[in-house]
């Protein structure tokens, strides 16, 4: 409620090496800020008050889109969502990513918000953001999963104490494109598959990604495997702009004539991480799109869902979006 930030130390390194030095020096006290679209809310509300901020926006190597030898792309973590949405090469090779980036928040936020920030942002559960001492905040209760809690936007799947969902629109796209996150810390660089980058509460309830203090997400590699494939993205939110997804779906597919030769689907806002829809993938691989297939898709898409007080609407929505994705592959 405060709306006035507290005092913190602000560092603005212009190289990854300097940033890593600062992160190493300040350890858990340090917080990486990129576009600031998630961070500043926390600071103004004074719910999270890290004493040291490392602003990585001035590091040139974190910006931009580069074509790779395998036909894929490397996208710097500081590349803005607008740049991704408008990039001709991304639109040609990975339209699902361009579409997802173009559906984030609002034009103003996309101009400042970055790919790295969108992927790394914290959940939007209003109890957690309001400062409730919940599991994710280090407490021992989930306030969004009580018999009377307001949880319309929360999980359908894989809840483990916490029922908050991933709010990222680009995250499902990275999963279906088999993207690789390039992470560096003082010990060196490592590559983490998108599916492994996002972590649920059963692994660590206080984080949503594998990023730990000292880590910098340098960028995301999108391998050539899915470049130019048939891709689909759809997001449903209450408003057409400046709204988090009630549910989103991303798909990449390769066709063999009318048949679906290979496919990956992931949905957003149904669990803490982007959800690979493997049962739908298994079902439609090798099949020809059509009404009969859509009926089966609807049957398996939401299998295992455990709705909360106010979110069973996500079941038909997930089924419908999966059907629409499959339908988009019809000739």
């Amino acid at each position, binding site marked *: *409620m*405060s*709306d*006035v*930030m*507290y*005092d913190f130390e602000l560092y603005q390194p212009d190289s990854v090496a300097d940033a890593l030095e600062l992160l190493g020096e300040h350890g858990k006290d340090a917080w990486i800020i990129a576009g600031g679209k998630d961070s500043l809310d926390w600071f103004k509300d*004074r719910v999270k008050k890290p004493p040291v901020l490392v602003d990585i926006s001035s590091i040139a190597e974190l910006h931009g889109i580069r074509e790779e030898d395998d036909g894929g792309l490397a996208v710097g973590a500081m590349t803005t969502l607008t740049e991704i949405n408008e990039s001709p090469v991304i639109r040609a090779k990975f339209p699902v990513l361009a579409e997802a980036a173009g559906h984030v928040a*609002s034009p103003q936020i996309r101009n400042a918000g970055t790919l790295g920030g969108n992927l790394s942002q914290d959940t939007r559960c*209003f*109890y957690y953001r*309001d400062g*409730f001492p919940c599991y994710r905040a280090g407490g021992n209760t989930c*306030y969004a999963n*009580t018999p*009377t*809690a*307001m*949880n*319309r936007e929360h999980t359908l799947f894989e809840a483990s104490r916490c029922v908050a969902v991933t709010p990222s629109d680009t995250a499902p796209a990275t999963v279906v494109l088999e993207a690789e996150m390039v992470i560096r810390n003082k010990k060196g660089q490592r590559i983490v598959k998108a599916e492994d980058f996002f972590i649920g509460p059963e692994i660590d309830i206080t984080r949503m990604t594998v990023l730990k203090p000292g880590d910098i997400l340098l960028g995301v590699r999108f391998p050539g495997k899915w470049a130019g494939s048939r891709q689909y993205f*759809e997001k*449903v*939110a*209450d*408003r*057409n*702009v*400046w*709204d*988090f997804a*009630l549910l989103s779906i991303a798909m990449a597919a390769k066709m063999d004539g009318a048949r679906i030769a290979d496919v990956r689907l992931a949905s957003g806002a149904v669990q803490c991480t982007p959800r690979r829809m493997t049962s739908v993938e298994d079902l439609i691989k090798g099949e020809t799109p059509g009404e009969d297939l859509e009926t089966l898709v609807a049957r398996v898409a939401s299998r295992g869902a455990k709705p909360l*007080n*106010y*979110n*069973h*609407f996500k*079941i*038909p*929505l997930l089924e*419908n*979006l999966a*059907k*629409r994705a499959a339908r988009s592959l019809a000739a």
Partner: protein
Amino acid sequence: MAYKLIGKNFTPPDLEAKVTGAARYAEDFRADGMAFIRILASPMPHAMVKKIDLGRAEKVPGFLAALTPDEVKQPGPTGQPILAAEPAYVGQPIVAIAAETEQAAEDAVAAIEIELEPLAFCVDPLESLRPGGPNALTGGNISGRRIEFQEIKWSGKDFALAGEDALPKGTPVVEWAFGDVEAAFKEAAVVVEENMVHASNAHHAMEPRTAAAYWENGKCHVWGSTQSTAFAQPALARLIGIEPSDLVFVAEYCGGGFGGKATSYPLMALPALMSKKLGGRPCLARVSRAEEYYNGYARAGFQAWAKFGFRKDGRLIAADVYVVQDLGSTSGFPDFNNVGNATSIVFQPENMRFRAMPVLTNTVPKGAQRGPGENQTANMFEPLIDKAARELGIDRLAIRLANAPGGGGKDAKYGAEQGPVTSAYLREALVKGGERFNWAERVKTSGQRNGSKVRAVAIGQAYHSAGRNGFDGLVRITPDGILHIHTGVGNLGTFSYASTSRVAAEVLGYDWSRCTIERGGTARSLPWNLGQFGSNTSFTMTRTNFVAATDAKDKLLTLASMDLGGSPDDYDLVDEHVVHKSDTARRVSFADCAKRAVKLGGAFNGQEVPEDINPMTRAAVAAIAGTGLIGVAKDNLAKEGVVPALSVGFIEIELDLETGKYEILDYVGVADCGTVMHPQGLAAQVRGGAVMGFGLASTERHIYDPAYGRPGARGLHQAKPKTYLDIPAEMGWDAVDQPDPQNPVGAKGIGEPLEGAASSALICAISEALGGYMFNRTPVVTDMILNAAAGRPQSHKPLQTNCE
């Protein structure tokens, strides 16, 4: 009547500053040595402050002073204190701190040690009415305008009789009826009956209610964000504890109000009180978005039941309505009364009973929000009209035409007393809208499906009272010939302060470029005017400006006859000259008349004033007396009956059954607003009202966790007003353009029902797309549509409120 200015477009004088950013709002105020105020707000929905320890706060570098509840006036139990000793909602201000910087103030707030004793709370009015249910305030759960603060619990039998999902109908505190409702229901060909919920929702004006103040030479200067100027001053002076004459109040621009800034309010007085404590030092109390949610008031929600009986031809012969209003934590706004009145004027039931129960809850205080009660009426009851049409097998436009008041309103009846109205052309608005929208053709394909999408058309209607009388007008012609129109109405943003001022220029035949509007602060010598709220400005202020200009005209004619011979009747006003009718060489300019008035004194230059004007007007005239020819008068023009603003909306949507999303393909709003004063201004109101209405219908609502009493829609992205990408790029508008006979230029207001017509039209269209599905809940949000389309039950219970 052919007018020179009225009905013509013009550029309002405040427009350029708003577009260029030159406009200065309260938050833009800065002064040397300014102190900054931050607030400690209640983290609990209901508590008693047991102890406030400022020891640590006072040690924060930059700390200057603190204000605590015991230092400010505490109103009655259902009033809203500036700082609360018994906070009754999360976010209610308890302690204010001033410091050298805003950050220091916030740091000091964080260092306050406060002890709160939690008290019982409730966020559901029906829960409070249950036997043994919690009271929102110590000592009671019932209040309302002119309703005593008291505790009322309905019996277990009342709840048992109703059943789990129907509104219990215990003894109400408001009840009225006309005709024989029960007998009429027996005659009805079709009876529709539904229980329903209308959510509360935040105003969330773009400009939060920041205020600034300082004291100098015994006067308190305040910059505030309000819809009104003159009307806001006395109440603000009372809050500060001074005489109105000792308050210099500046309110030049208002970044949105919608009723939530109708006049002054407790938070506006805070910097003045803090400044006084600091010896007059300028103080700024900036209000954040979340604080605007907590302190910005809200539309009241309802849990309701309605039963309507219709004849075969669609005529409504019986209406029985019971509403339980969520007052919030203060006596709130009497939306409930407006539900009864709106039902009576829009649908003209032949027999009607109305009952209401306003209940206190531990949610943010409720105030007027655009069409308070009337627009909820439209959203709750228009779908019932459609349901009846379907059951009767008659067209949805036809059933509205069968009930709408029209033909000028001679047969129209209003409210419990079934009193008269000044004019009513709702029927004509329906006809005009139907033709413009091509309803007859488009309704034929309504409900047709194309893939996963369904197109649907629908109609909404709404009402609000639209005019008052008895206020003062003040104009002045200075020796340079310029006409100064002094208006205290305020500047909500509708430009009606300017369009109504043009009436004075019209009466005197002025070129508009030679007129200036004196407004924006009490130092501009403002007459006693009603505030800019309640859709009243067009009617009320055209009358005040008319009588003031008429007084000036009489004085011009008198002066000319005194100097040029003959009687006043021998002269006309022509091109800012007083000209003899038969000898045009005998003429004198307005500028010269003003010079003569200055010399003559008396009533001509304001040294004498009419006895019946308000003391504020009297003081305003005294401040400008001797500077020109003064026209000043009280509006004593005849007025009998309620002035109704009426509006209809026609809409077409395409709804996707698989996503619950829809596109608004077309919208046409038609206004019954009397004479159209300013076409562009009206167009902006029709469209703006529709945008706001679409949000009211489909996304905006309060959410409270019932276990913790904390809200979940404090920010703009959570409250979800509509954006540009949610609305059609083009929206049509029109007006009946029939003058109201009780206004000198035929004008009456319109702002508020334009929202309700659009919101109810959208709700009806969504229902139509789903085959007449009755949501009985506003807003109709995405998940409700999805559940309806999928044949699944809704997540909420039928009468559950403040929930998702």
